[in-house]
């Protein structure tokens, strides 16, 4: 379990679960940048290559969040892993669709489904 404020993380079934939380709608700046760095460094260490981003605690987000997800995804892809999203609200799905990046990451209804998807 992590102590990051914006990206809470935990491991489950050899998958890294990233849970955005708090005021991620306006996340930006130094703090998030350093949290993102820490998260990316963790992905470089031996351990899970697959990531599930669980949006249970976030009702919507903007392009700064999308940028952070993109950075995580790039790392995951370079390490040969997969990234799947889950528990995305209707608003979150709309934002992904409008942004045109819903095609990049599979979206599952639940965390369990997402874990099964990345391990498939």
């Amino acid at each position, binding site marked *: 379990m992590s102590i990051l404020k914006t990206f809470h993380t935990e491991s489950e079934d050899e998958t890294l679960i990233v849970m955005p939380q708090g005021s991620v*709608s306006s996340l930006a700046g130094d703090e998030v940048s350093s949290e993102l760095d820490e998260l990316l460094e963790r992905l470089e260490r031996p351990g899970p290559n697959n990531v599930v981003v669980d949006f249970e605690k976030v009702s919507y987000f*903007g392009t700064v969040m999308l940028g952070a997800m993109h950075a995580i995804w790039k790392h995951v892809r370079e390490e040969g892993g997969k990234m799947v999203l889950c528990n995305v609200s209707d608003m979150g799905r709309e934002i992904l669709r*409008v942004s045109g990046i819903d095609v990049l990451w599979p979206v599952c209804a639940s965390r369990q489904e997402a874990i099964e998807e990345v391990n498939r």
Partner: protein
Amino acid sequence: MTTILVVDDSAVDRQLAGGFLANDPDLTVRYAGDGAEALETIVRKAPDLVLTDLMMPKIDGLQLVAEVRRSHPLVPVILMTSKGSEEIAVQALQQGAASYVPKRMLARKLLSTVRSVLAVATRERSHSRLMGCMTQSECRFALENDFTLFGPLVAYLQEEVTRMGLCDETERMRIGVALEEGLTNALYHGNLEVGSELRGEDDKAYFALVEERRRQAPYRHRRIHVDASLSREQAMLRIRDEGSGFDPSSIPDPTDPENLEKASGRGVLLMRTFMDEVAYNEMGNTVTMTKRRGTNNHPNHDEES
């Protein structure tokens, strides 16, 4: 007459609390034996105040606080706490309970606590009624280059737009997204003049440049100006930065598969999709977004003016 609903599964405690309240001739006391019965009573006729025990079968005091806050936000809830329920009482206060009285101090503190909470609730109800009569609101902000102000500003404007009856919960969120994108653009690309080319390529360098410019002249002296003009018919939100502006028509289409991995253009696309109108001034440093009453968002690609 002011009505107090006393909720407790212990008939003895219920009558005890009710007895203290009955000392005030202006108060009428009603009773419920648990949270579920209380909610039924509140739905039939909302009391002016709920006084509740915490530990109860079916719906407990904590759940009751949450439900009353959701369905009747102007009805205050006071908790009666006993030894061992301190932790749950803290949670209930965090969820919006107005106050608490330890059961062992009911005789000394109950009436004075109820009276002071009722006084505040009366003021809040009057304020809420008055705000319901507001037909036009104008406000103006000049923000430093501090992204931590965006969340509170967006929340404030969302609340005002909702108060004007302009939108439902979904539209409220869409307005929030559009506002945050406008503010983010004004800060990063406007005032700090940091392009999005670095984003996605080298995030570390991108954020380092952002932080550097936040401390550097002339960038650090610049402000983000937000004007909001809200009426019962529409919300007009204008965001102006003090940067050198940009050409909105130069933004690549982020939905083009070739641009899928680029960071540029998505914010403006979201703004245009979620608002009814989005227009930039000629210089490209001011964006005006309009949301009209009762319109659901449709993909909208208005030409810049």
